[in-house]
């Protein structure tokens, strides 16, 4: 089960991801990200505080946006990853390509800092 909730704030779009991102639910994650990117907003933050588990398929979804992030100069920040999920991101090397922060405050600092 995976739930995606999008909220549009003043200067950024926030997407809260809750549950498990496995092979079947990663399609839902992709849809959620897609609709956020389609709004062409320059700031997107992903709240993964309640993301319990991510499979390789779920990682693949995040990975597939890396190119778009770089091309459109979008500030894309993921925050609140649990230790377990963060480790998965790290093993694959995604921590080198995506901005991962611990808290929402840190994420917002990242947005405003740019």
């Amino acid at each position, binding site marked *: 089960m995976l739930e995606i909730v999008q909220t549009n704030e003043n200067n950024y779009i926030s997407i809260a991801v809750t549950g498990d991102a496995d092979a079947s639910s990663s399609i839902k994650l992709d849809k959620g990200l897609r609709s956020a990117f389609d709004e062409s907003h320059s700031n997107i933050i992903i709240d993964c505080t309640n993301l319990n588990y991510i499979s*390789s398929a779920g*990682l*693949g979804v995040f990975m597939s946006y890396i190119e778009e992030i770089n091309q459109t100069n979008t500030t894309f920040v993921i925050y609140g990853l649990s230790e377990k999920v963060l480790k998965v991101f790290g*093993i694959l*090397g995604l921590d080198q390509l995506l901005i991962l922060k611990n808290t929402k405050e840190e994420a917002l600092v990242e947005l405003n800092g740019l």
Partner: protein
Amino acid sequence: MRISLAISTLLWLIMTLLDVLQVLAVRSDVDLGISPIVPVLIIDFFFVFVVLFYRLRITKVESTDFIDYLWRVFAIGLIATLVSLALGLFNNSIADSALANNPFLEEVLYSIRFGLISVFLVSTFTVWKKLILYQKSKRLVIWWNVFEGVILLSIFFNLIGGDLQTNDLFKILFGVITLMALILSANLKWVAFLNFKQKWKSILLILLITIYLGYFFTSIYVPGEETMDILKSIDNLFIVSLFVFLLFYSIFSLLVILFNLPTSSVFEKKMEEAINFQRLSQSIQQGENENQIFDILLTSSMSAVYADAGWLEIERNKQGTEESEIRRKNLSPTNRLEVIEQIKVSKQKYVLKNPLSKASEQDQTLILFKKSNFRSVLIVPLIIQEKIAGHMYLLNELSDGFNKEMINIINTFASQASISIENFRLLGEALENERYKKELNIAKKVQRALLPVNLDHNDSFQIHAFTQAPDEVGGDYYDTFRLSEHKFAVVIGDVSGKGTSAAFHMSQMKGIFQSLVQLDLAPDEFLVKANKALSGCLEKTSFITLSYFVIDTEHKSVEYSRAGHCPTLFYSSQNSSAEFLENKGLGLGILRNDSFKNYVFVNKMTFQKDDVIVLYTDGISEASNNSGEEFGYDRMKKILTDNAKFDAVSIQKTFIKKLFEFCEDKNLNDDYTMVVIKFK
């Protein structure tokens, strides 16, 4: 049968001869010396053999066609009548000649007539028996046997003599037989099985047979005008009983058929419904397709409720577009649209609860129009696999054209058709699934062949691999290659996702490994080139993690690079402890441009005797038990530390055993692979 025919004919001839002789004897006052019983006995046996003949004949011709039976009786009656009439005419034509009052001739003519009438009576009797005993019960058979026995015995009553007018015993017996005949005549079940046309035919035939009976009776027992007696004495109990019984049954049948005529169409209708129902349920076995079932449904439903027109709206999902297919009957497309418009605006809608379903959209709707060609419309939903698969619209020109009975029948038809189609679809799906299973099995075999059976190595190290996938095919990959006498390449990889798509990418990886490895590249170079090769052919959301090792047994060194793959577990015999090799890296296919090379690095280390390298995929490290706990790195470290003294095969076996123990009854839902290298 033939013998009885011959004997009866012979007996008849003897009878005629005897009569003539008797007349002659009376004329010439000569006593023939024949006992008076003899001619009577001959008549009796004649009857017996005629009865026997017909019994045999009818049982031989086994047919359920009642009209056929009646026709046969009618034909015999016709012949008898014609002969009888011809004899009468002959008699009249010679009235003035010398022969006119010739007693011999009269006797012969009477005898012929008597014989023919007897044959007719007996044949009618046998056929009537057949009709009465149609759909017999045990009790009826007993009744009939008693009756038939009494009738046959009555043949010999004339040995006693006496006639109806004078003999009391005759009267009593006659009364008893008449009563039994009356009771038996109530058995007219066969009438119900005639259709409308057959009923009319039967009425005609029985009416004619009744007329014959009347005619024969008068010709035997009512004497001509010139004789003074009012009635010739009725002397033969058998003949008269037969007459009475046959007449009763004929009249009863006539009346019953007549009164059954108006309701026969209802009966026929029910039969037709039953047959249609059977057609609906049988259609699958005959290899018909869905459309044929729909056609049968529409046709039989329309005829069952006397609908004037109708159509079926079948929803079919063809490549996402939900377009409904229309099958019309007695209705033009424009008329159909008109009716739909009227349905939308109509205020007289009645929802009829379907007792078999819970959802409200599965209920039937009855709609009445005020001004239209069609005054009533019945909409029946077709439910297949618990989903609405379409609707059947039945139109009637009459207002209130559908009654409760009809709606019930339609319900049964619709559900039977739905069952047939459901079965048809399920069968198709089952076959399709079977085919997929076979295909997957082939894929499994092909993929197995992609993984090496013999792993390249030399005397300096042992190597052992193990892999398992929950689906038929998986995305885990390992391979080895002998670069030179002392140099070996070992690779382990994991494709993102599971199942078939992962398996395809895995086979691409195999191809890339087999071609690049021959270039004897440094591990980081290998990964950069592999990433470039994969960039063009991987799906956008797919990536492959890989660890690439080059083992040099001469220098006892290992060079390795990691492309996002799980960190390698290494046991150092010198330290007697296991550690994960930490180094940076990025999965293949994540960055599909030249910047990838900035994210891969080469690490180098040396090995000693009894050191162990454990390569694995995340199916092992991330396997979780029922409480959601992961197998994890710490457990793996401990298992390796505790078992490093054993050989590669034992280490692998212990690992998997411990993994299963940890997961308990929870099924592993990811591919898991392990390659163990032990240096010597």
